[in-house]
């Protein structure tokens, strides 16, 4: 596990609107190399929107989005993905009428510096439950299997920074544990992750740092241990 001070992905003072209503206010988040950063907050606090803003799916009206030092705010999602960002959406969004293997193949691309580490073989080695399902239509998988598949599909693009939107949401406890083990494995491989979650306990043991968002504004930023010890912030901003 290598962590450095090098910034992998960041937002700087972004404001995001849906129509005329403002969702994010001056949001700055920065994730450095090898870090797993938890982005915590209640339902509707702005976690998903922050991730979508970075991925180019909810372009910020003002402020900056940087991937590996490149300013990419308001660029289209494929440009941001090619710059090294991988996005795993909240509702999984597998291609339901494609097989598991075809879902992985659609995600296949080189990383921003020509990285080509991930292959279908390596995805199956890391997510062994997918291999026996490889010819099955993705729409027929369980929620947990779909979650694994979306993560695998995004890894196939050799991202340098990974955005994960509530990967544990709506899944059975045993599956949540498996997802947690997968995220620790990715952290140990040195993948940089911004993990949006409602559940702080899920993030303990995975994330090193935490950012808390509430009503579209950042209200706390420190190590996850400091958050764990801060009863005031937890009580005010997290549903525990």
């Amino acid at each position, binding site marked *: 596990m290598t962590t450095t001070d090098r910034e992998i992905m960041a937002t700087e003072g972004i404001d995001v609107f849906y129509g005329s209503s403002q969702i994010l206010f001056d949001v700055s988040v920065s994730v450095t190399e090898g870090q797993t950063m938890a982005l915590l907050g209640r339902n509707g606090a702005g976690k998903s929107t922050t991730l979508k803003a970075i991925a180019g799916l909810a372009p910020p009206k003002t402020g900056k989005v940087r991937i590996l030092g490149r300013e990419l705010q308001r660029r289209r*999602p494929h440009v941001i*993905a090619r710059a090294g960002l991988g996005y795993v959406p909240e509702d999984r*969004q597998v*291609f339901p009428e494609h097989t598991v293997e075809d879902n992985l193949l*659609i995600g296949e691309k080189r990383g921003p510096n020509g990285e080509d580490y991930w292959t279908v073989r390596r995805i199956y080695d890391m997510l062994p439950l997918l291999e026996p399902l490889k010819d099955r239509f993705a729409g027929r998988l369980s929620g947990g299997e779909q979650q694994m598949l979306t993560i695998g599909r995004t890894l196939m693009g050799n991202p340098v920074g990974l955005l994960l939107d509530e990967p544990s949401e709506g899944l059975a406890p045993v599956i949540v544990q498996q997802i947690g083990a997968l995220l620790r494995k990715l952290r140990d491989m040195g993948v940089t992750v911004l993990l949006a979650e409602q559940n702080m306990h899920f993030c303990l043991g995975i994330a090193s740092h935490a950012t808390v968002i509430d009503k579209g504004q950042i209200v706390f930023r420190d190590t996850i241990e400091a958050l764990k010890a801060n009863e005031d912030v937890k009580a005010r901003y997290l549903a525990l």
Partner: protein
Amino acid sequence: MDLSALASCLITPSCVITQTTSGLIIGLLLFLVAAGVSLIFGVLKVVNFAHGAFYMLGAYFAYTAYQLSGNYLIAVLAGGIGVALFGLVFERLLISRVYGSPVLMQLLVCYGAILILDDLVKIIWGADFLSFGMPSAFQQLPFVFAGGVVPVFYLFLIVVALAIAGLLGLLISKTRYGKIVRAAAVNPSMVSALGINTGVVYASVFVLGGFLAGLAGGLAAPVRSLTAGMGTSIIIESFIVTVIGGMGSVAGALVGSILIGLVRSFGTIGFPLFTEGLMFVLMAVVLVLKPSGLFGKGGA
């Protein structure tokens, strides 16, 4: 209505063979146009009413290329490639501006394009019917199967169109390009988030549809008379095909096209005054029994 003539045809092998080959030709040429309409609708959610005009342009491009080169293969490829390039310009300049617009806006853009293209054809190639003529390679004695006469060119058309249909099916179902196209039809923003430029995918589908329509025009040219407006009836039939086969389904377009072709060729014998109407009856029957089309999914 002449049901006795239809019945006597159906029990006469020579008549069945003649009508089946002519039905297959109508159907397979129609397929090449309808497959593009269906693909473009499935992926871009745009109804390309101008696709019949693309077929017409293919025929005229092939005509000119044949006049210049005397080579039928070059003529057909000129039709396909010429219309593919035209389709690229058309998509970038016009259609890309009406993505997500109400269908009425798309209709207006396409209908305007049809009127302009028909007039341009009259200006460039003249208002009179043009005859392509049968390429010399096909000026041979026809095949005779069980008394049914099948011109060599008909057989060539059937084989080539089926081969194109097969290649198109492989392209869409087996290649990475086809997988991306099908994924973009379902969830373009996720495809984009995986690093794929959906604008390029859209344009390529339009170019592919144009290529197929242009090939159809070039292939049809020796057996059809060329005239401005020749795309009108084939675009209407293409819509019937996509309704019968299911919007967005290439296999559905093939089955629907062949059904329409056979209904037309046998219909001229049994219902000489109602052949056009038969297609709509067939469409209505399919709509009642399976509203999403024979190969369509769900309720759409």
